[in-house]
């Protein structure tokens, strides 16, 4: 493969625009001038790498990595998937970080004030590095939905935040994973910042009965797609796509 060219132009109609008034915080935090379009330079086509040696054995086990007195309360789940690029090729060695609320919808954060209880055995953060086939997986409890200050009665659907590093800073992304079958997805002012229903569906993890651990944990599959690179077919190399 030709891992050489600049990245495909981002499809900004697929992503949420900056200014989305139904999500009130975006109103004062959205740039209003046009972005400066810049075909990638070396500064964007390079990016940091993170070795597997950075990780500890419990980094992808949110059930155990903060536990003090026992397991956290909640539905035990496994989340797994692949990190791919837009050319449908695996992205190995990608650092994937994830964070979430506990089963009651409460985050462990000093600025969080929701009245649901903190779980003494749940921190809510984890990370993994994709293997040669772009695969990652982790174990956690299913996060709860929670209310948030936007409208007087807005709720977030259950979700897990994801941060992903590919091979280049141009691929850097943060997104959220939702759960199949959750009716609250379609009532959320943050989800609805994404204009295209098919794009929203790309963020909904599928319940995968075949990957469940019997008598233990449900499984959800969540693939993540990073930007792909142009081929260099008529430049220095002729390796095709």
């Amino acid at each position: 493969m030709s891992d050489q060219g600049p990245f495909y132009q981002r499809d900004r109609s697929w992503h949420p625009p900056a200014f989305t008034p139904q999500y009130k915080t975006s109103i004062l935090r959205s740039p209003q001038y046009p972005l400066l379009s810049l075909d990638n330079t070396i500064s964007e086509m390079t990016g940091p790498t993170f070795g597997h040696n950075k990780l500890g054995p419990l980094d992808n086990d949110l059930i155990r990595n903060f536990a003090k007195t026992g397991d956290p309360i909640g539905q035990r789940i496994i989340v797994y998937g692949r990190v791919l690029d837009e050319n449908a090729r695996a992205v190995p060695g990608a650092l994937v970080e994830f964070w979430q609320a506990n089963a009651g919808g409460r985050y462990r954060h000093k600025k969080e004030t929701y009245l649901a209880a903190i779980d003494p055995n749940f921190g809510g953060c984890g990370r993994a590095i994709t293997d040669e086939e772009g695969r990652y997986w982790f174990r956690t409890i299913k996060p709860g939905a929670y209310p948030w200050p936007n409208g007087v009665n807005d709720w977030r659907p259950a979700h897990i935040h994801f941060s992903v590093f590919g091979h280049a800073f141009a691929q850097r992304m943060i997104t959220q994973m939702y759960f199949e079958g959750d009716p609250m997805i379609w009532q959320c002012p943050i989800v609805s910042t994404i204009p295209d229903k098919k794009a929203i569906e790309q963020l909904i993890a599928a319940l995968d009965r075949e990957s469940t651990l019997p008598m233990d944990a449900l499984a959800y599959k969540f693939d993540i797609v990073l930007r792909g690179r142009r081929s260099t077919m008529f430049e220095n190399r002729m390796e095709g796509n």
Partner: protein
Amino acid sequence: MVQKLDRLKESPSQTAGPYVHIGATPNWVEITGVWNEDLGLVLVGPETKGERIVVQGRIFDGSGTPLKDALVEIWQADAQGLYNSPQEKRGKADPHFTGWGRQPTDGTTGEYRFETIKPGRVPYKDGRLMAPHITFWIVARGINMGLHTRMYFGDEEAANAECPVLARIEHKVRVPTLIASRSEEKGMPTYTFDIRLQGEKETVFFDI
């Protein structure tokens, strides 16, 4: 019907939210014992080559209020202008400098601060040299998709004047939004780079 291209769509972005620190800098929000230290806190060690500098600033919303819940990442070349990345094909970068940093903005003052080195110059795609710069990526509650920008150095007037990227900015009045001023603080060269999300002095953000 025609043949299918079989390409995938990039996963759509969603805001990092107010609690991005839980995942990115857990120790900073007192989630301790999960991993030893937050990634990206330290860029420079005793063996790193190059001039030690501090880069600091704040991020202002459209009302002029600093963001106290943002996360800032930087990515830069080493002192020779090489990136510490497998994608860097021009040579081997300083092994004692990762080039990547990550800091939250302070929960009270909104300030971010990096201790790093001044990067060397890197070529544009046509071979002309760009002025020394640091790439910034900003995420926060209310930002639906991470914002890319660059910081340039106020004491690099000649290089800035010939930088092919700065030259692409149509409204020249906006160029200074990317240029950090240099001062001395506690004996360290310090560059202050404030970022404005909106308003007359809105920072130039990039669609890369």
